């Protein structure tokens, strides 16, 4: 009666074999590698790139242990970090700025395992070291910025169409265009509507108040917000590429938040600096009317103007009055490089796109002999980089900015302009930096807790329950194998709380085994035959095991739904562990018991430790 049909044994064997196969990749460790991927869409990663990289490595006398090409990147594996660093520099010099050359760690999984889909669990930042940021997009600023841009568009369009208008200004969440009379409103309104079809346009025609009021509709606002997040993610991608990170994670979380994880980054200060910066370039006109400037200096800044400081070549700040209207923004920038101007001063060369080039040509055409200001806006604060006088119309879309800057400043500015501007500034609301040494320590600590706990439990079980204890221990080991194999297949990210959950799952899983063993003992105590005791023991324990696992699973699922970050990692393993422990305690351990006891001709006793029968029952 205690025999499984053959297929059940085979199923157990197949399960364990599969679990073992997918657990294996976790045991091979990782080796240093250099990863080359494309920084721009125009730069293709192909065989030619691989050859160039290999040639570059050869010139410095290194041979990679392995070369992998996966369509998006070329990875070269080296035997130690020294070789890795040398190779990185050599490759970077050879392939240039169009490619990102990053340090990475590659799993040393043998290729036959990889072909079967075996891959090690991805380690969370707390185990491998790196930086984690949670950034919140400042939606108010995104709306503000968009309103400013709308106001600028209206001005330009009305000017083009030669329609006279009064002030164009922002009033809270709307843009108001003042008009001389009701007739002009009638003329201008269709033009504005055509220009901004997705916005709500309202005509106001009152005795002394003729104006057009433009505001965002709810869907437009929603669209704006989601676009802002999307653009910021794209920009972050570009910036992270500039940093050279091998496997960055940049994801939207919730409505307005972005998670950035940069594994293995060492220079965290630089990462924070580059990611957090919201620099964008604005071109605005300078008001040279001396009386207005004097007024402003006396604390009476006229409407529509802003007082700023212009840092001249001599390093001294001169106050200048700048119009608030933005003529051109960094959105129209195609590229930016640091370099030098004709006087050998550090400069940033900017390429504008066609729209930008046209706006810039028109602007310089209209304003010859006036001054314009190139303003680098960061975190809502503008800084005048340079305020040159326009000598003649500038076409072709090539602009050079010079000013009082160092070579490093020029490089930074170029990088920020090139990587694109953020649609809205972002604030870091959560940040975690874990040094690589701490990550390694966390792995070994988690491993040791599990190991020693497992050993202690096993020793106790074997002493207390003898052969049944061995069965329990084996099924616990099978549980561990299934759990790790399963987690590897699912591609769950392992964190330190995840390792804690593995240990805890094992501790809790033994509960099912104890329930069964105690139950079998009890049946024996009540005078059952050995075979019947096994049958009834397992049967009666099953109900209880099911109930207790369901309640634990409820807690686990709640954690999975409401937990974030570390807790989620814990919850994943916990839930998965409940399922595997049920399989191993009920199915696998029974299989083992059946194998041991089911095929004996005359089974008289079970090795389950001493069974003590109270005197009252003996009688």
């Amino acid at each position: 009666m205690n025999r499984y049909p053959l297929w059940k044994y085979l199923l157990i064997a197949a399960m364990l074999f599969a679990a073992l196969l997918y657990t294996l990749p976790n045991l091979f460790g990782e080796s240093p590698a250099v990863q080359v991927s494309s920084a721009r869409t125009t730069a293709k990663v192909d065989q030619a790139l691989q050859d160039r990289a290999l040639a570059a490595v050869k010139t410095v006398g290194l041979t990679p242990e392995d070369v992998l090409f996966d369509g998006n990147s070329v990875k070269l594996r080296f035997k130690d970090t020294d070789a890795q660093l040398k190779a990185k520099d050599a490759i970077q010099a050879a392939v240039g700025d169009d490619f990102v050359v990053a340090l990475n760690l590659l799993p040393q999984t043998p290729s036959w395992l990889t072909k079967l889909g075996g891959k090690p669990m991805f380690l969370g930042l707390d185990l491998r070291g790196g930086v984690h940021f949670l950034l919140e997009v400042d939606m108010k600023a995104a709306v503000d910025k968009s309103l400013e841009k709308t106001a600028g568009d209206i001005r330009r369009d009305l000017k083009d169409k030669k329609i006279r208008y009064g002030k164009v200004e922002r009033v809270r969440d709307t843009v108001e265009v003042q008009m001389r009379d009701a007739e002009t409103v009638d003329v201008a309104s269709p033009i504005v509507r055509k220009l901004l079809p997705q916005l709500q346009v309202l005509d106001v025609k009152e005795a002394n108040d003729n104006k057009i009021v433009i505001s965002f509709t709810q869907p437009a606002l929603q669209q704006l917000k989601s676009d802002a997040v999307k653009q910021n993610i794209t920009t972050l991608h570009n910036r992270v590429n500039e940093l050279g990170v091998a496997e960055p994670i940049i994801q939207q979380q919730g409505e307005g938040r972005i998670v950035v994880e940069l594994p293995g980054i060492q220079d965290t200060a630089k990462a924070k600096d580059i990611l957090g910066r919201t620099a964008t370039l604005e071109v605005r006109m300078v008001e040279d009317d001396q009386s207005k400037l004097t007024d402003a200096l006396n604390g009476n800044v006229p409407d529509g103007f802003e007082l700023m400081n212009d840092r001249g070549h001599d390093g001294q700040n001169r106050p200048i009055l700048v119009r608030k209207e933005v003529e051109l923004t960094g959105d129209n920038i195609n590229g930016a490089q640091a370099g030098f101007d004709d006087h050998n001063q550090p400069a940033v060369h900017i390429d504008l796109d066609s729209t930008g080039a046209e706006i810039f040509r028109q602007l310089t055409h209209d304003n010859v002999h006036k001054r314009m200001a190139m303003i680098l806006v960061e975190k809502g604060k503008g800084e005048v980089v340079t305020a040159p006088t326009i000598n003649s119309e500038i076409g072709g879309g090539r602009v050079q900015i010079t000013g009082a800057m160092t070579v490093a400043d020029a490089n930074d500015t170029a990088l920020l302009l090139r990587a694109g501007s953020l649609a809205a500034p972002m604030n870091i609301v959560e940040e975690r930096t874990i040094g690589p040494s701490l990550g390694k320590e966390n792995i070994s600590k988690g491993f040791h807790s599990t190991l020693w706990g497992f050993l202690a439990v096993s020793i106790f079980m074997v002493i207390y329950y003898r052969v049944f204890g061995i069965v329990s221990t084996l099924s616990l080991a099978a549980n561990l194998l299934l759990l790790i194999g399963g987690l590897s297949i699912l591609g769950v990210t392992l964190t330190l709380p995840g390792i804690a959950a593995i240990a805890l799952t094992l501790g809790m899983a033994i509960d099912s085994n104890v329930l069964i063993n105690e139950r079998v003992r009890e049946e024996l105590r009540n005078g059952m035959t050995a075979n019947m005791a096994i049958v009834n023991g397992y049967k009666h324990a099953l109900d209880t095991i099911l109930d207790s696992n369901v309640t634990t699973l409820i807690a686990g699922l709640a954690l999975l739904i409401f937990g974030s970050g570390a807790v989620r990692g814990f919850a994943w393993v916990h839930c998965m562990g409940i399922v595997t422990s049920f399989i191993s305690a009920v199915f696998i351990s029974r299989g083992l018991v059946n194998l041991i006891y089911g095929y004996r001709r005359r089974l008289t006793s079970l090795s389950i430790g001493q069974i003590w029968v109270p005197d009252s029952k003996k009688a």
Partner: protein
Amino acid sequence: MELFRIKHDIPFMSYGRLTTAISLVTFIVAVFFLIFKGLNFGVEFTGGTVMELRYAQAIELGQVRTKVDALKYGEAQVQSLGTTTDVMVRLPNIKAKTSAQLSNEVLDTLKKDRADVELRKVEFIGPSVGDELVSHGLTALALVCLGIIVYLAIRFEWRFAVSAIIANMHDVVIILGFFAFFQWEFTLTVLAAVLAVLGYSVNESVVVFDRIRENFRKPQMRGKSVPEIIDNAITATMSRTIITHGSTELMVLSMLVFGGPALHGFATALTIGILFGIYSSVLVASPLLLMLDVSRENMLKPVKVKEEAVV
């Protein structure tokens, strides 16, 4: 070897009044500390910046503290992480500065003082995230309770569900009471541990309840009174209760010893939870069941239905 040689059923239920009194007192004491001392919430909840530093050679905490205080960042905490070389610095949020600036400045200052300092970990949490975590944590707690009540009410009967959940909330409150009394840091992983304990501990009550139900159905138990039936169920499951909890505790102790500071709070919460879990599932849940007037009839009705279905 048999550890538990119990000759007769232990009359647990006759101590009901005493155990309930003990539970009530510990519960009230825990609530008292929770209210008057409050939990020492971790940085995930309060917002702020935490830095973990390691020195190559031993360092005086006072020295670090003076340096950090000199920066005037408000109430900074400097703590040891169990060794003389590992130091944790906790700073409140400052509006004018980003966390990046904050941690860099602190590190620079400390580096000037002692060059052998290494930054191991920085954690910064903005204030809004913390509030969200609290509300999510409470929702999770409520959801777990509800889920368990519903499941037990279906599987057993509402009396069982109610007494199990009260017994387990009692455990949770006591764990929180310990954290409030000793002012241990209450972090997100501790919250995870508390919720895991909730699931685990209910598990315990379920095993006893299962036995009670079984006893109600057994013919040889027919003449017995309800307290006798419960006593028998508890006694019969006792060795299993102690052994499983002992095994789980072995695992948790191993985490406490080998897991390092990152797992310390987690393991501590579990240790307390497991110890009180044994007590509460036996001596809180079962007396409650009696108080709620559980009777044979409560359990027998669904059984009949079930049997008919099988036939």
